[in-house]
């Protein structure tokens, strides 16, 4: 496929790798934010093309992974009701709640449907006026414009039986939480290309300055990631801390303005709880007052559901880049993709799942 295959060329990947070897003079620790990048790194063995001085730390950019177990439990409560059709992206179905997951609810007769787009959920609502159709809206900035459009269209078309269980999170506050932590080891970031496609990268400039850390907006194919690493290491070696854009075929400095406009119409910035990290102020999106009639938490009075996280699972430390998945005592034994303890083992972008699928020999 065009714009994919040419960025997987082995010869060019080796050229970039060689260049990285040439410029590296000391140890550097870089974090890739996005779970999609983590999977590409582990799947294509990009870390094996790097000098031993460079270590890649896997970031929190997996929305399924950072969704607190409390929200999972809320979705399970909703899906168990006879009057509800719960629509979700497929990844969420296997994430364990307190006692079961959404797939178990579906198996015992709950109407849980996997959708490709939030607009599919709006369509289902229009087709089933006697049911409450709830869309489980998780995601980072990349997904927010699509979810905003679903609510906007539901209001415009007067589809009152549609609502959303919103668990939207934002990248810059999570980066700031990592950078300001006393355990932080990250010296440079590969920022998430698709988040920046929507938001642009101007909001990262103050972060780069304040924490003196280079941030390179990076794509998802092997050549993108290698070039992103090269640009980041070059900045570190030259003692620069700037925001640079490797993924310029998709990302503009101001991002996608029509998408941001609709996001701002529907959503407002709210505090959010992150799995294993806790509440981060101004780190998520919630529905604005004008759209409160589409807020499933308000409609179904879900506010009082509180659940604690598993004690064995170290998802929080993995998501902050403090531990690697294979440093967990449950990894690959008690916790597997078939029987996951935590979300990073479930999601197709979770760091634990990436290690399980592609790194079993090394474990």
């Amino acid at each position, binding site marked *: 496929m065009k714009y994919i295959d040419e960025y997987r060329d082995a010869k060019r990947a080796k050229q970039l790798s060689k260049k990285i070897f040439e410029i590296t003079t000391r140890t550097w620790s870089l974090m890739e934010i996005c779970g999609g990048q983590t999977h590409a790194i582990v799947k294509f063995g990009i870390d094996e093309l790097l000098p031993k001085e460079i270590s890649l730390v896997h970031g929190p950019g997996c929305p399924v992974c950072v969704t607190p177990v409390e929200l999972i439990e809320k979705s399970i409560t909703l899906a168990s009701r006879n009057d509800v059709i719960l629509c979700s992206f497929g990844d969420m179905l296997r994430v364990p709640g307190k006692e079961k997951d959404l797939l178990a609810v579906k198996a015992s007769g709950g109407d849980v449907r996997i959708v490709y787009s939030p607009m599919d959920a709006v369509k289902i609502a229009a087709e089933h006026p006697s049911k409450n159709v709830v869309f489980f809206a998780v995601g980072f900035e990349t997904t927010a414009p699509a979810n905003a459009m679903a609510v906007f269209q539901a209001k415009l078309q007067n589809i009152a039986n549609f609502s959303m269980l919103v668990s939207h999170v934002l990248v810059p506050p999570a980066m700031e939480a990592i950078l300001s932590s006393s355990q932080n080891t990250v010296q440079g970031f590969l920022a998430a290309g698709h988040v920046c496609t929507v938001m642009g990268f101007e909001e990262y400039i103050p972060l780069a300055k304040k924490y003196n850390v280079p941030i390179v907006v990076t794509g998802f194919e092997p050549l993108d990631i290698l070039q992103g690493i090269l640009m980041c290491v070059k900045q570190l070696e030259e003692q620069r801390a700037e925001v640079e854009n490797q993924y310029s*075929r998709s990302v503009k400095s101001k991002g996608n303005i029509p998408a941001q406009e609709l996001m701002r119409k529907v959503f407002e910035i709210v505090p959010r709880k992150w799995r294993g990290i806790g509440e981060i102020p101004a780190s998520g999106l919630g529905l604005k007052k004008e759209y409160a009639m589409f807020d499933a938490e308000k409609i179904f009075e879900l506010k009082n559901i509180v659940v604690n996280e598993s004690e064995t699972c170290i998802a929080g430390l993995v998501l902050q880049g403090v531990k690697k998945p294979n440093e967990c005592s449950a990894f690959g034994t008690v916790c597997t993709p078939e029987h996951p303890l935590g979300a990073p083992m479930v999601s197709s972008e979770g760091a634990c799942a990436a290690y399980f699928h592609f790194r079993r020999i090394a474990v």
Partner: protein
Amino acid sequence: MCLAIPGKIESITNNELLQRTGKVNFGGIIKEINLSYVPEATVDDFVIVHVGFAISTVDKDEANRVFEYLKEMEELKELNESNE
């Protein structure tokens, strides 16, 4: 989750504001995609698509940047070798 893939616009099926849609070809698989957020994109353009929505139009010139950089590196190397 933030997975998004490039596809080529084959046709525009609805051109109304905030309801813009089109048929997009992903290596042979054609899907109806919401084009509301890429008002500038037209037939034959490549767009980056996430959960049924195009979030950007691929910039053809910028897409070549990494290949041009590698080519320059190679030429520079050859030049250095011929000088030695």
